[in-house]
């Protein structure tokens, strides 16, 4: 933790795609902080720059200008070697399409970040059992992704993103490829992880159902953040969901604009 108690600081991020005469300004100066133990959601209409923002934070792309600090370290200026050290160990990822390796079993997939970083996972065995038990994927550990359901796959992916105790988990539309029931189950699990083990999660989604599990939501449009919504301390998920829908309706003639 740095002295301000902030886990992640996003400072005036700008991102331009393309060359001079054909430039797309995907992010036009985005700034926000994430405190440790927060479950932050980012919502916005298609093309608003959500994925771009997440990828900048995830160090998958380099911002044109601005900084991303993780625990006070400017990770947006890291070279690829330092980045590799952060990926999978300090930062965990969850993707819409799961991104499991289909020739590895569930267990091998989950343990992959550890072996990549050369962690001896004799110790991780308990952690694996714990996660697998919690995410209800014990019986698919020896199966290959092709033999799992979508929900199981995403929960295996979630276990993989958590196995190395990352400082932050970044998720881009994690429920995008799931049916309602599986999506709800996944979000329940993520919320529980967030609550019980104070895990910091940053999730991008345009689904109010999913973001209603967050503790705070940032709204982004045309590359700038224009609104913020906080879940009250004892507010239930269902109530928060109502509030999000209300806001979306207010913001621009119904959800069509946002969703």
């Amino acid at each position, binding site marked *: 933790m740095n002295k301000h108690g902030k886990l992640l600081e996003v400072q005036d991020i700008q991102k331009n795609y393309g060359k001079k005469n054909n430039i797309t300004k995907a992010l036009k100066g985005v700034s926000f902080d994430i405190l440790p133990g927060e479950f932050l959601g980012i919502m916005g209409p298609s093309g608003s720059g959500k994925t771009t923002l997440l990828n900048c934070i995830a160090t*998958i792309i380099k911002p044109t200008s601005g900084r991303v600090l993780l625990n006070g370290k400017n990770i947006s200026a890291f070279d690829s070697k330092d980045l590799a050290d952060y990926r999978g160990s300090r930062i965990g990822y969850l993707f819409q399409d799961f991104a499991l*390796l289909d020739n590895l079993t569930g267990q091998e997939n989950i343990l992959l970040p550890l*072996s990549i970083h050369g962690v001896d996972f004799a110790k991780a065995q308990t952690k694996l059992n714990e996660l697998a038990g919690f995410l209800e994927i014990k019986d698919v550990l020896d199966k290959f992704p092709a033999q799992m359901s979508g929900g199981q796959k995403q929960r295996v992916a979630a276990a993989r993103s958590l196995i190395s105790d990352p400082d932050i988990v970044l998720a881009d539309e994690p429920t995008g490829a799931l049916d309602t029931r599986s999506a709800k189950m996944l979000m329940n699990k993520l919320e529980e992880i967030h609550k019980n083990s104070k895990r910091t999660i940053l999730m991008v989604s345009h689904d109010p159902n999913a973001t209603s599990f967050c503790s705070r939501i940032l709204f982004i449009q045309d590359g700038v953040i224009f609104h913020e919504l906080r879940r009250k301390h004892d507010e239930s998920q269902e109530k928060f969901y109502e509030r999000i829908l209300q806001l979306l309706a207010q913001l621009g003639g119904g959800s069509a604009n946002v969703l």
Partner: protein
Amino acid sequence: MFSRLIYRNAKRSRKENLIYFATLVTAVASFYIILSLGRQDVILFLKEFESDAIDKLLAYMPIVYLFALFLLFFLTLFANRYQLNRRGKEFGLYLMLGMRKERLVLQLVAEGIVTSVLALIGGILIGGFLAEIISLTVSKLVGQGIIGHQISLSISAIIMTVIGFLFIQSLALVILGGRLFHQEVHQLLYEQMDKIQDMGHLRGNIFHLLAGAVLLAIAYWLILYHFMDFGGLLLFVAFVLGCLGTIIFMRGFGRLLGILTSLSERKSTKGLRTFTLRQFQENIANKSASVAITSILITLSIILLADGASIFIGLENTFARSSSVYDFTVNGNDQEVEQFLTSEKMVPYVEDLNFLEIGHMKEQGERGENDMPLSLVDWSELREQLIMVLPDSYKEQFLSGEVQGYTISSENPEALNLLGTLEIDTKAPYLIPESSYNGLLKTIGEKPLNLQSDEMALYFNPDFMSMDNLDSFPVLDQILEVAEDNGKSLLHINDQAIYIRPFLPMKGLAADRSIEITSAFIVPDAMFKQLLNEETYASYWNFRIPQKLQDEQGLMLPMMESRDILKSSGFEFESYLQNFGRKLFYVVAGSYATLYMGFIFLIIACTVLALQFLTQMKQTGKRYVTLSMLGANRKQMKKSMHRQVMLTFLLPMSIASVSGAVGIKAMISFVMVNVDDQGQLYPVAFAFAALVIAILVIYGVAVTRSADHEIDKLRWKPDID
């Protein structure tokens, strides 16, 4: 626009796909080399005096051509399939954008033509260059300066190469294009992988592994110990068993590998080890058949290359005169021949002129129980003595009368070969008068025999005895010497005791093998007349090219000149040239064919392995993106990939090495009698082994390069290619 797209695609696929293009070029070059064989210096040279054999060889060319066509067809089919798979997505997009399938296929054809033309140009240039080099080296190695060099460029070979290559290339494209035509756009856009990780049951896998190993073991056993049984039928059985064994073994191995991976990772897994093994497993298990086939191809190629190499070693024997003494043997009316050979024209070429008489021995007047004429020869004492000196295992067989037939082989003990030869030949042995053989002895600087009237000498033709040491028979000489010291006679002719003279220097009786005598009795001239069966009498004039002439001009030139003079005389004659030519022919034809096939097999195997690996790499490229998202750096991924390449090449290679070694061992003991000195074999065998490894390494490096390139090309963003 359309034509530019074609041109750009053709150019890009050449650039992106060096291996594909190189394969096509290799195919073309191989065609050209085999087709231009007739223009090689050695072949042109041999045509002069072994024209029959050469014509026969060249008559086989269409078959060789078709066979090469057949093999290379698979090569191009595989290469093209890889190429089209690679570009499936691109085609899918064209179709999505409204391009009609007919037009897509048309575009493919056009691209194919451009690529083919370029491959043809490159291949013919390389092939022509290689053919030229081969021609020069071989003529230099073989020709001893008498083979002139001619440019080996052959227009007909080029034409046939073009026709053949275009034929297989278009056949491959028609087959693949047809398949493309019937594929759904969806299939193209989302290339299917072998998603199901079917690991089978542990027991089933072990069964496969064991069954494969057992089949292989049986095949090895058959090859090592029953190579020649049932007229080579068992060889075929062994080959089939070996192939089956390899395929089943690979099947079991690939899947077992998966299970082993799961087991081993419980203990420790560092870096991308699990991933590497899983990738390897996927490559092997899902394609065990083709991996097994590459293994079989490598085996064949190892054996063929070793064989070709050994034949080439035999080349030295071609120059070594070994047993042969005379350069020419002339046949015809005795006086006329003598007159001609002593005429002014011929005298400069004639030295050591010798008159050789020969004929079979008469048989007894009465007949035996099976109506066969009885021999005058009773050699039971000698036979007994020979059996006595046999090694124990053979001796028992002989004494119990188990022995039915004989094979003469360098593997056999000397006494067994002698027994075998005499058993057959003593029925009506060849007789040679002492005077004829004395002439031969004088030529090689030995003393004449001076046989007593009850003496003879045993002659064995060194060319037919396949002995390690051609001019001495230590066992026989030992027996004869003891008998001589004891004044004992080991042989009776017509009930008269005859004493056999030991230590006879044995050399070829004539210039060529035309006089096929395995063994003969050399008897005093009087005895020759008395015992000769007149009907079988034959006579020959033998001579050598004078040593002085040889020193001045070498052997070949005067030999060819005198051959021309003899030809004009109309006499029948044989020359050592023929012998030389025939040997050379076998060496050249044999080593060309085997080496060629060996290389083709090797190249096919390597190409299949390489393309298969790259296909998998391409299909699973996204996995590397995921790995990098999880923190793997490029170095780690490349390391894993290099391991995969190594394993992919090593697995088929290692089984092939074992099988190949067994095959070579069997060939050394059963077939390759032409290798006198096995010590010679090792440097050459080593060189060829190194060559095989070098080719594999080149392919491995090429694959690694392309795969490295793929990894460098990776975009971090997971949902963008």
